[in-house]
């Protein structure tokens, strides 16, 4: 087990390095650089100023040298310095990461719980109106653009009904403490989390349903019936457990990508997370920050994949670490 983890970590580091190198060059292919952006914003663009900025950011050096410096930093867990925000990249990301994790993990939990619940119900009552209703709902959420749901939700719940705050992480200036603060954050969290969650909920609903129907046909379910077990026990212990394996695996793989994929939601709901940070870094050509976000997001993906694998291995006794 340890060697399995070690091996995955080494592989992960190699993948991360490859991602860094690829993105390093990719980002620099883009027209314009941070010096140009900052000169533009400063309302003055004389050459001296741009040159100064380039020198300051080290952009005047040859690309391989820049890459070398960057990678050297990464190896000592230094993600570099954000040109534009004038702060260490790791600090900027750490400031934003909790918000994103809170958002995506909530979305993930909601989508998984509801998805499995609806999927189970639909499979249990396959062919009935309930199944049709759940399947139709899942299909619609699966096909609806995420940003659209976000817009509609704001219109309905913030503007028309005024039930939920439409933006931000908590009520600014309210200075809630303790439980009141938790409630406050929760209220801010509902809409963005649901927005992300609905699509995945639809995915898991459909998958759970399909998987349950598939497992239902397997021989051991017949064995269980031949033992005289009640339907409920069969559903829970035999069907659901086996059916959830692929769902949980897929969900685990989703979590990682969720972290980097929350750009739209974070923008629409002004959620101070790293998806937005990435987009801002991109349009400002803040190379180090953008790379840093990519590294962190990719590392998340790798970590979640590893965790998923470990969980999977715990749930499914057929897989061994080494044999």
């Amino acid at each position, binding site marked *: 087990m340890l060697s399995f983890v070690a091996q995955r970590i080494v592989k992960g580091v190699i*993948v991360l390095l*490859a*991602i860094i190198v690829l*993105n390093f060059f*990719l*980002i620099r*292919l*883009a*027209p314009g650089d941070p010096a140009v952006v900052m000169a533009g914003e400063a309302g003055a663009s004389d050459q001296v100023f741009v040159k100064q900025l380039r020198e300051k950011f080290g952009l005047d050096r040859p690309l391989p040298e820049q890459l070398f410096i960057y990678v050297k930093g990464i190896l000592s867990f230094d993600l570099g310095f954000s040109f534009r925000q004038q702060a260490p990249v790791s600090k900027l990301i750490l400031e934003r990461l909790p918000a994103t994790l809170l958002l995506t993990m909530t979305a993930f939990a909601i989508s998984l719980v509801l998805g499995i619940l609806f999927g189970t119900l639909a499979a249990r009552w396959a062919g009935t109106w309930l199944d049709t209703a759940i399947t139709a709902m899942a*299909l*619609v959420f*699966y*096909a*609806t*653009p*995420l*940003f*659209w749901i976000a*817009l509609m939700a704001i*219109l309905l719940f913030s*503007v028309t009904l005024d039930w939920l705050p439409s933006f931000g992480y908590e009520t600014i200036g309210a200075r809630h403490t303790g439980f009141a603060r938790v409630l406050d954050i929760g209220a801010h969290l509902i809409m963005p989390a649901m927005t992300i969650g609905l699509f995945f909920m639809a995915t898991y609903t459909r998958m759970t349903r399909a998987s349950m129907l598939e497992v239902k*046909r397997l021989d051991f379910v017949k064995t269980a019936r031949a033992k005289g077990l009640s339907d409920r026990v069969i559903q829970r212990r035999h069907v659901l457990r086996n059916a959830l394996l692929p769902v949980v695996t897929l969900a685990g793989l989703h979590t*990682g*990508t969720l*972290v*980097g*994929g929350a*750009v*739209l939601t974070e*923008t629409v709901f002004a959620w101070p997370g790293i*998806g937005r940070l*990435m*987009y801002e870094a*991109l*349009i400002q050509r803040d190379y180090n920050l*953008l790379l840093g*976000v*990519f590294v962190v*997001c*990719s590392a998340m*993906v*790798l970590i979640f994949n590893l965790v998923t694998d470990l969980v999977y291995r715990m749930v499914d006794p057929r897989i061994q670490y080494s044999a």
Partner: protein
Amino acid sequence: MRQFARQMLRNPSGLIGLIIVVMAILVAVVGPLIFPNSPWRMVQRPFLPPFTLSAVPLGTDALGRDVFAGIIHGARVSLLVGLVSTLAALAVGVPLGAIAGYFGGRVDDALMRFTEFFQTIPSFALAIVLVAILQPSIYSIVAAIAIVSWPPVARLVRGEVLSLRTREYVQAAIVTGQTNRWIIWHEILPNALSPVIVLASLMIATAILLESSLSFLGLGDPNLISWGYMVGAGRTVIRQAWWITVFPGLAILLSVLGLNLVGEGLNDALNPRLARQGR
């Protein structure tokens, strides 16, 4: 083939999906010929609500442009982006997956590492970065969507090929002295096709969503009208003029829904296990 068509038609949701998709394709192909006016032309007063003037049945947008014309012309772009980017993703994913699965060993290892690598980078983020770097245009959008969507194809094809490779008829082909290329082309790929077709229909749907998301962030091709662009452009005025966002949004929803239904219908029709069960 006939049996397949019968299977497809027997499935009511698949049939509904098929009808939606065929209609969307008809609109995309024929629509602009029937309504040749540029959707960019400012034809009426801005923010004209829908169903008030028969000349602009779905109202006008912030500049007084015909929303209906936009949806008709946008169908072509949205569907084309979906289709072309899916084809591009298939063009990368299918050969890669086939080679990895067929030859196995180190080739497989290398290609799968490559695929995993692309799957590790969050795909939407990568798409954004690619479009921003290449500067938004129909080509960069198609390329970006293709680049982020080929890995699942490669994995699927690899898995299929991996299992097909050990099939006895493939071994029979080896034994009769066929070349690798002939075997991949004639024995393996035709049999790996059905799951790929199912996946492709779902990928078109995803690509349409992806294009609309990019357009929503302002990363669409400014010279072409697409549904995603319309939603993105309409969202700032959604409070005054819901119709600018609602109608193209519905168009996206319907076509994506249709494609998904078709995908499911195909899956049911092509899935041998279900077919066998029916017998």
